[in-house]
């Protein structure tokens, strides 16, 4: 068994939300008692609707958002507190890629300067080596050498995302967290960036946490997938089986809602209702108000994440692990 690169145990993040200026403060459990681990070189996909806590989870894994309770262990050492020198030093080994590349780039610095910045900040390599590294990175992400002196506004969306990825890779991290990295791109460009991420990952053996609401992209890039609903993991399995034979009713609805070209909408399971407000979390299983199969136990008891087959787990009272066939 390979040791996990990053391990989260019992992570909880509570935001305080106030309704109106003098309103009562209500706690919002954005991430609720969540545990997961990522092996070196592995890609973990995180899917769920908006408000399910995907992005908060990504930030907590990197130590940017502090946990109310629970621990993050990176390379067998506990995550240092945000802002400390140890934490900053650790950022060499873990990086973040955001959804909107234009917001993530400084519009007054050239692309090459920004890709070089992590090397300057962390004082890695000699001056000449840095230039060589920047050139190599730009080539690796498919940017032309003459684009080195361009500013972000002179590049297209796909090229900007390439620059952001090159910058994230500059310090040769062991882990990158990608938060919706291709959601803002056209499908043709999206395919270019997804292929590139897969190639870079193979080449540098980077572990990746890939957060997205696009199941098709996640299936293509991730080895293992966790499905989140209101801050909790409801199902976890390898990406080959989870979309082919989803077990949790929520995963089933998610898979069913993906439009397939050439297939009519009829006969699909369309989930009714909106994702509930995390501030007023339903009792029992948080999914029960939208679940077509909900029974009495679902309204009262929170289901735990249980093993329901070979390397797969689901948090649902109605999924039977022992007697159900393991999906092929």
């Amino acid at each position, binding site marked *: 068994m390979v040791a996990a690169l990053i391990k989260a145990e019992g992570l909880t993040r509570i935001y305080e939300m106030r309704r109106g200026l003098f309103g009562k403060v209500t706690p919002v459990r954005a991430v609720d008692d969540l545990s997961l681990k990522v092996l070196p070189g592995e890609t973990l996909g995180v899917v769920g*609707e*908006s408000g399910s806590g995907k992005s908060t989870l990504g930030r907590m894994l990197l130590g940017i958002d502090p946990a109310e309770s629970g621990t993050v262990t990176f390379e067998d050492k506990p995550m240092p507190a945000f802002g400390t020198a140890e934490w900053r030093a650790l950022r060499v080994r873990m990086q973040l890629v955001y959804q909107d590349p234009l917001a993530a780039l400084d519009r007054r610095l050239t692309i090459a300067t920004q890709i070089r910045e992590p090397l300057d900040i962390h004082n890695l390599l000699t001056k000449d080596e840095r230039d060589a590294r920047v050139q190599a990175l730009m080539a690796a992400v498919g940017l032309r050498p003459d684009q080195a002196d361009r500013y972000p506004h002179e590049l*297209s*969306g*796909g*090229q900007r995302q390439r620059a952001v990825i090159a910058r994230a890779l500059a310090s040769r991290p062991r882990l990158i967290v990608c938060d919706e990295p291709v959601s803002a791109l*056209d*499908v*043709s*460009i*999206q*395919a*270019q960036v*997804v*292929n590139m991420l*897969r190639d870079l990952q193979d080449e540098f053996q980077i572990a990746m946490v890939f957060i997205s*609401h*696009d*199941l*098709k*992209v996640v*299936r*293509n890039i991730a080895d293992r997938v966790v499905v989140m609903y209101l801050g909790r993991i409801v199902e976890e399995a390898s*990406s*080959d089986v989870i*979309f*082919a034979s989803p077990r949790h009713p929520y995963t089933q*609805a*998610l*898979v*069913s*809602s*993906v*439009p*397939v*070209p*050439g*297939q*009519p*909408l009829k006969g*699909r399971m*369309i*989930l*009714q209702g*909106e*994702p509930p407000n995390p501030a007023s979390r339903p009792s029992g299983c948080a999914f029960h108000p939208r679940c077509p199969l909900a029974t009495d136990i679902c309204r009262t008891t929170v289901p735990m994440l249980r093993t329901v087959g070979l390397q797969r787990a689901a948090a649902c009272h109605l999924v039977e692990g022992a007697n159900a066939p393991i999906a092929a």
Partner: protein
Amino acid sequence: MSQELVELRDLKVAFDGIQVLHGIDLTVGRGEALGLVGESGCGKSVTWLAALGLLPGKATISGSVCIEGHELCGAPRQALETVRGGRIAMIFQDPSSSLNPVIGIGQQITEALTLHRDLRGETARAEALRLLDMVGIPDAPRRFNLFPHEFSGGQCQRLMIAMALAGEPDLLIADEPTTALDATIQAQILDLLIQLRAETGMATVFISHDLGAVSQVCERVCVMYAGRIVEQGSITQLFSNPQHPYTRGLFDAIPRLDGPRTRLVPIPGTVPNPKHLTAGCAFAPRCAHAAAPCDFHRPQLDMLEDGRRLACFNPVLSAGTAPVRQKLVEGV
């Protein structure tokens, strides 16, 4: 009088002298659902913004836009205003920025009812409630005076649709209505659009870059590239047998949810800058099928035997399809 509801003839748009739309010919029949697909910057939205006179003053528009024989292009503002919202309604990608944040949603919908159908007071309120119910806003009477920020993204899009329906339009133009929404909510909105079309019989133009979503809603599809229509046909024709390499590329780029996990097939390069278009086919630099004539001559949008229209010298011919023209077969 023609059968068609809306007819665009040789519609051209230029911004500051740079032409972005190069003569679009398009018809929408009564009750028809038409899809418009292509990457960002291909002119999908500009086509309809131009048709409705919604582009800023620096845009030069030429050509003809007719709704049931009445010319809209160059028509006076009053004439346009009876069409906009009344005959043709449009909804946009980002619903929360299309709604007024400081006015209650009930008032915003009744405003549209007053403008287009001259309904006031209790009648208007009753009709607004009926529309809210129709688009699936639960508990509408109690939420009538709430503000847009108190609704989720999916519900805001439902509110926009309710407002668009207020004028009982003959044509609803939905510009990327589900792009900003979650997959589950997207399925709900697509379902709603299908259902509304069945109930009211209005025509729908669905603008999207998501071929999956388009195929759920539409009967006929136009694929646009760099300000031109490059392929046009029924859903079945285009989806079972896309012939333009660009259409084919759009399909191949979509990751699959079933089957083996293979490497994705992107379209190399990006959409060309409208400033630097060559005399040849605009797609040629990115096209795997490009041959010598593609660089210097622009293919015309021709009608094929099976009724589709195609602008390509070297179409993708799948097995089982008879070659359309003999001279095209070489080099494929």
